[in-house]
């Protein structure tokens, strides 16, 4: 049974359609990744689903409750961890947890017990009674996540959980997210613009671009659906010649998409290894020097590119 169902969510801000009809579901027990470039509508979607913003049209059921008619029940059933660390810096970790426990209607004793439990789970016991200002970035984030869990929510919303963290802390946060999902059985909805994060953590992803879902499914299934391999050639290319090269390569049999960057060409094609010689000849024939070739399975970036015609890096700009 889905723990979240969104129907045709639309949000218009000052005439701009930030969300243009989102319909999707999150299943009980999964990690669901909401992937897209900055500005694609991820934050708007998460604000609507956590009852912080009202949709212009459409609605959603979260944990069985309608977000518009029963916002309070929705709030009681979910945990929400915003992108920025939003805790009191001049309270201790424990005080922050107990405060939120109380606001989520736990008794004083329950709130204190749960705080101790979560501090242990997040390996913050030693820092529990220190002010949050003294925490490192990774510790703050772990406390932030713990705060979203005080009331044992059915669904935890994590908005860009590793943005701004150093690579080591990022990997640690990933480990905690996996453990929460596996050991505590919490369904997790996370937004991210890091392809690797979605790929590593999510059982299923929805790829969002310009307020619309362009693809939804398990990362592997989405990659398979691209229908081939990715051949990347390192070249020396003049921007002016790019269009010609793109057309020349796209005309080859089996080629499904071509993207010419400043120093490389990415081609989605069936049977990648066998396609390399023909691609190579075409590129050289068009006057480009090919310096290296790699063949790989598609990544989520290729999935994004396949569906939108742009890479994530281009869409971020």
């Amino acid at each position, binding site marked *: 049974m889905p723990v979240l169902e969104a129907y045709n969510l639309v949000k218009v801000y000052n005439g701009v359609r930030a969300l243009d009809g989102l319909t999707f579901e999150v299943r009980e027990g999964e990690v669901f990744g909401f992937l897209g470039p900055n500005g694609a509508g991820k934050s708007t979607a998460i604000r609507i689903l956590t*009852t912080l913003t009202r949709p212009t049209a459409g609605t959603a059921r979260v944990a069985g409750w309608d977000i518009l008619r029963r916002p309070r029940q929705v*709030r009681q059933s979910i945990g*929400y961890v915003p992108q920025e660390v939003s805790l009191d810096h001049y309270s201790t970790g424990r005080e922050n947890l107990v*405060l939120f426990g109380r*606001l989520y209607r736990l008794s004083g004793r329950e709130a204190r017990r749960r705080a101790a439990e979560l501090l242990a789970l997040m390996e913050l016991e030693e820092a529990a009674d220190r002010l949050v200002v003294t925490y490192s970035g990774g510790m703050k984030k772990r406390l932030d996540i713990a705060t979203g869990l005080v009331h044992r929510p059915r669904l935890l919303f994590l908005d860009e959980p590793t943005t701004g963290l150093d690579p080591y802390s990022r990997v640690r946060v990933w480990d905690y997210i996996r453990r929460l999902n596996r050991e505590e059985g919490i369904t997790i909805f996370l937004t991210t613009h890091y392809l690797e994060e979605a790929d590593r953590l999510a059982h299923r992803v929805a790829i969002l671009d310009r307020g619309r879902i362009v693809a939804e499914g398990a990362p592997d299934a989405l990659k398979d659906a691209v229908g081939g391999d990715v051949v990347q050639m390192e070249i020396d290319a003049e921007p002016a010649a790019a269009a010609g090269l793109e057309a020349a390569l796209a005309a080859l049999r089996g080629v499904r998409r071509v993207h010419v960057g400043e120093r490389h060409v990415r081609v989605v094609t069936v049977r990648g290894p066998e396609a390399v010689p023909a691609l190579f000849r075409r590129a050289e024939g068009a006057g480009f020097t090919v310096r290296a070739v790699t063949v790989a399975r598609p990544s989520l970036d290729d999935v994004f590119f396949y569906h939108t015609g742009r890479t994530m890096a281009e869409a971020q700009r």
Partner: protein
Amino acid sequence: MRGLFSDTVQIWLRASRLALRQPVWVLSNLLEPVVWLFLFGQMYGSLARLPGFPTASYLEYFAPGVVTMTALFGSAWSGLGLITDIQRGTLDRLLATPAHRLALILGRVLHTGLTVAVQCLIILLVAGLMGAPTATGAPGALGVAFVAGLFGTGLSALSHALAVLVPREDPLAALVNFLSLPVIFVSTAMVPANFLPPWMQAVVRYNPVDWAVEAVRTLMLDGWVWNVLARDVLLLALLTALFNLAAVCAFNTRTR
């Protein structure tokens, strides 16, 4: 109503905890009114020698004014803390909990009101030592603290409403500055009404600052004059309720 009381207490505890952890905040809040009492008492001391001045010493006249000014300045800025919460995302995080919306405001403004009430009790103590005792004694002092706390709670709610509507520090600070001094000057906080020009005398009685000044001065100088006290406290209570309502409405605009 479920949870309103308990949520309010939690938010109040949080506000108090954060305030008490700033020693500069505690110290300056306690010392400032005493400094005012001393400085203004010296500066305007000769006013009391003018014919028609209602009290023997200026300090006696001005002490209720200091109480009210402390309540005003102690609460008018309180919305700034909310702006920090808005910018940090803490407010959104609180709004995403089932906590009662009104509690998110009440907890904060009651913290301000209580702080102001405690400050005012200290002022009364110091004023008493300096030769301006409270006519109604200890029960009257609690009455003064109540009036000051009520006034502070209302203004704090207004400050919070403005903070949500202009969610940046600079415009809010400018707005508070712009409003605070005129409402003090167009009141009997520093000067009796009969010393004011006629047009000001006409305006003064509609100024909420004056309702608070009048109630406090009544308790400090005249005693339990119930008709005056009842009218002022009722007006202040209505204003406080109105400003809290405005703050709730402002909060609700955030979740549009």
